[in-house]
């Protein structure tokens, strides 16, 4: 299990290659990567986080996933700071013997990282800056689990 909270850019493909290597009883790997959308109005995104709490909160979520699904391994990378359009914001990867566990655990982790890990996104555009509002649907998504 690896959890990285960092300001440095990363490449989800490179991370997936490393994550995929050297496993034994793994038939299925699922990855999710979140990107800053490229849209005309956005100059960059700024992500604030709560340093003392972030890694702890993500670790607690990861431990829930490991307790609930039969996973062989798990990776979470989440950036903070300034991110340019097209940049990778974060990724999750799960490795399991069977595909259902890998899919469900990745989906679960994403839902909880959205609403329960202490990150706040601000979009800076030509017309000024605005904090991204939490969506009701993101809160509602937690009820699936």
């Amino acid at each position, binding site marked *: 299990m690896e959890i990285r909270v960092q300001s440095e850019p990363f490449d989800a493909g490179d991370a997936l290659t490393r994550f995929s290597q050297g496993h034994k009883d793994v038939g299925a790997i699922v990855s999710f990567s979140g990107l800053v959308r490229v849209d005309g109005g956005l100059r960059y995104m700024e992500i604030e986080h709560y340093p003392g*709490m972030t890694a*702890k909160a993500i670790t607690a979520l990861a431990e829930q996933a490991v307790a609930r699904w039969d996973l062989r391994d798990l990776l979470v990378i*989440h950036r903070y700071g300034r991110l340019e359009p097209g940049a990778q914001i974060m990724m999750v990867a799960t490795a399991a013997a069977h595909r259902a566990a890998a899919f469900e655990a990745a989906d679960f982790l994403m839902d909880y*990282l*959205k609403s329960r890990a*202490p990150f*706040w996104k601000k979009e800076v555009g030509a017309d000024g800056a605005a*904090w991204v509002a939490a969506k009701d649907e993101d809160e509602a998504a937690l009820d699936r689990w």
Partner: protein
Amino acid sequence: MTIDILYFAWLRERIGIPRERVDTDAATVADLVDELTAREDRYAVAFGDLGAIRVAVDQELTEFDAALDGAREVAFFPPMTGG
């Protein structure tokens, strides 16, 4: 007791500081919020809608009725938007 209070995102911007240390006898998070809002307008404005604010005590998410007994760090912030 002495508590570090942290503010994030628009709460930090409205209050104007990322953190401060306070001496307080507040029994719960809600009591602490009452003390803060009584202080200055910018706190009253920032804490105007508690439904839009989340709180962590000692880096664990909790509710406004949580006790502060022994707490060292209280953080206030809007709903999280990670992922």
